[in-house]
């Protein structure tokens, strides 16, 4: 199986994802942040395609970029943010945030550096069941081995629907 993950596409998608993720947390206007988040989600869908996961890529685009982001934009339109844009956008926790980010980054760098030999370094000896019929196999897994988590997820979605409606109602 020839890898579709050419290095050029990987680095292009990685830079797009990280730059737009930084834009998400630095933009003043939340609409711009939401649009940057859509760019990040689309480049992650490109990553999933490169990793031979077309169904997850499609779900990512349909559910995230299509569903969740519309919800976000809708709420941004609903809450009037005119005067919020003019206020100061960051709170006073930047020291704690810097320490936390450095600790997390150091931990991840340490783990990845020491565990480098644990994962197979290239995809040559990768799992063979991933070519072709990805959607069919995920369906078989979802309705076979993962039947109970699937039902629990449906119950979670039902609770979330009821909860969202109750929260957003004017008077309960």
């Amino acid at each position, binding site marked *: 199986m020839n*890898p579709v993950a050419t*290095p050029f596409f*990987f680095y292009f998608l990685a830079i797009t*994802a*990280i730059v737009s*993720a*930084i834009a*998400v*947390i630095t933009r003043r206007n*939340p609409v711009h*942040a939401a649009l940057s*988040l859509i760019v*990040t*989600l689309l480049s992650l869908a490109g*990553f999933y395609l490169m*990793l031979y*996961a077309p*169904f*997850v890529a499609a*779900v*990512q685009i349909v*559910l*995230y970029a299509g569903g969740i982001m519309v*919800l*976000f934009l809708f*709420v941004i339109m*609903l*809450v009037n*943010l005119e005067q*919020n844009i003019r206020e100061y956008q*960051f*709170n006073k*926790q930047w020291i704690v*945030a810097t320490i*936390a*980010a450095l600790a*997390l980054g150091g931990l*991840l760098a340490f783990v*990845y550096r020491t565990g480098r030999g644990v*994962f197979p*370094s*290239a*995809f040559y000896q*990768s*799992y063979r069941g*991933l070519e072709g019929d990805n959607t069919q*196999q*995920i369906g078989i897994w*979802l309705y076979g081995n*993962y039947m109970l988590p699937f039902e629990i*997820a449906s119950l*979670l979605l039902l*609770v*979330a*629907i009821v*909860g*969202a409606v*109750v*929260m*957003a109602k004017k008077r309960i």
Partner: protein
Amino acid sequence: MTEITTMHYLVVAAALFIIGTIGVLTRRNVVIILMSIELILNAVNLNLVAFSRLYGLHGQVFAIFVITDAAAEAAVGLGIIIAFFRNKETVNVDEVDLLKW
């Protein structure tokens, strides 16, 4: 340029995770904090799918479950934001003190 390995994907996912953490900790706008949580969940998803390339389809199934959770969390969180905005006319997280007295 060398071959792209699992480690490359893990590093990208770690970068997204850290950016999301910084966003959660420093921003005042609750909507952007929720977006940063979505960034964190997406970083986890990228890890899961990258490992599913090595160890079978379990990772992709779990990624779908994580996306489901993200949808539920976004719906409930945005409902809470609407309810809060109706009470206080703001979405700044440091003014959320309705449960204090």
